[in-house]
């Protein structure tokens, strides 16, 4: 049973792996933009907290 679960998606890999390859650059840039936005928000929050404490 386990072997079937592992085997089925791989059997169709040739049909869809290139879709991922086409879309990956967009997903990577999106991930980068989200990550930077979160970092900046944290940094901004930290600066505000420091100001409040000061």
């Amino acid at each position, binding site marked *: 049973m386990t072997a079937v679960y592992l085997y089925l998606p791989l059997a169709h890999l040739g049909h869809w792996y290139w*879709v991922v390859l*086409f879309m*990956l650059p*967009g997903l990577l*840039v*999106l991930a980068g*933009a989200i990550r930077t936005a979160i970092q900046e928000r944290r940094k901004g929050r930290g600066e505000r907290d420091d100001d409040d404490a000061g």
Partner: protein
Amino acid sequence: MIPIAHALLIGRRDLPIPEWLFAWAAAVVLVASFFALSMLWTKSRLEADTWHPASERISALLVNRVTELMTGLIGVALLAVVLWAGAAGTQLPGLNFAPTFVFITFWLGTVLVSVLFGDVFRAFNPWRAIGRAYGWGLHRLSGAPWRPPLRYPERLGRWPAALGLVAFAWLELIYGASNPAGLQPHDVAIATAVYTGYALAAMALFGTEVWLERGETFSVYFGMFSRLAPPEVRRGRLGLRRALAAATHWATERASVWVVVVAIGITAFDGAQEGLLSGAITSTTNALGHVGLGTTLSFRVAETFFLLVSVGAIGAIFWAGVVGMTSVRGSPAVGELGRLFAHTLIPIALAYLVAHYFSYFVFGQQAQFTYLLSDPLGNGSDYFGTSTGSIDYTALSAASIWYVQVGALVCGHVTGLALAHDRAIAIYGDPEQASRSQRWMLVVMVCFTCLGLFLLSQSNQ
């Protein structure tokens, strides 16, 4: 569809690297352009009015009463030829002047001319010429300037133009494709006559210039692309402006963003229906057939649904980027931000058009200017001695088509990125803040580029 169609007639390409690697290379170019813009483009350069008059002699030669009358008459004559050929000519789409002229020469060729020489369609627009003649006639009869009876509802903005684009695409891509023989010339003539009646009625109600600016589909569509070109006529004087600068003032009317989103969406749908969506369209058609709809109706309903989905998907990518931008401090509201960045999609609409229809246009023009010109009705006449001409399908290789497609997509998206960066500097003032906001537009541009290349790779299988 017209049988002389897309690049798929050429067969598979012989490329040195896999197609998906082009998407990666294009993304790298876009990311590099983003950093270059952030570092080197620190002042807004496109917002100011840079128009300056051209030489008076050249201006007077090109823009005068005679040329205005002549171009208007040419436009009306071409409209008459389309109606005549569609109604009286052969019903074989590939041998009749009307379908090739409307869907290739007019639809694609006018975009090319507009991008190079400005709003040329305005001069040749047959509906404008008839509308102006109507206004002039009423003025002569009554002795007072003609005033339209109704005021154009502001809330409509450019919605009529956006919906007109959907209707035009529906006619070609869905109604035409539902007939095994392709879109019949007779149907093209009827659609042209109906649109002519609609445009003239709207101009009579709201005024010629108001309707041309907001509602007349082709004036708005070609006018949008003409904003990328340097030449512009102002108050009867030809002048030049900085390339791309006029685009920054295009999206002043409500729903302008949907005009450009629809323009990209219908092209994306045309590519997707041959590849990515073909399976989904077939299954939906079959499912609707089982419900009891006829085969043709099922197909049209399924295709219409996926056409709207394609337009919605393009809109969703753009608005996701706009929502992302609002995370930057000092951003205007989402709706206003969308309007402010709508023009950045114009080069992308152009890129999609070139990428999807470049080969279609080249092959179609060989037919248009040989046998279709000499024998517009397809009845054996030979007015210009070119009726024996044919299409040379070896004029373009499959690889050269692919390189043009990739080049168009990359150039279009880099230009879109530059327009967005310039607008961001104008909004945020601070270049650093502007770059921060433009990370989201970079995501939009990379997504559109990869999607475009993916659709092309699919439709060329």
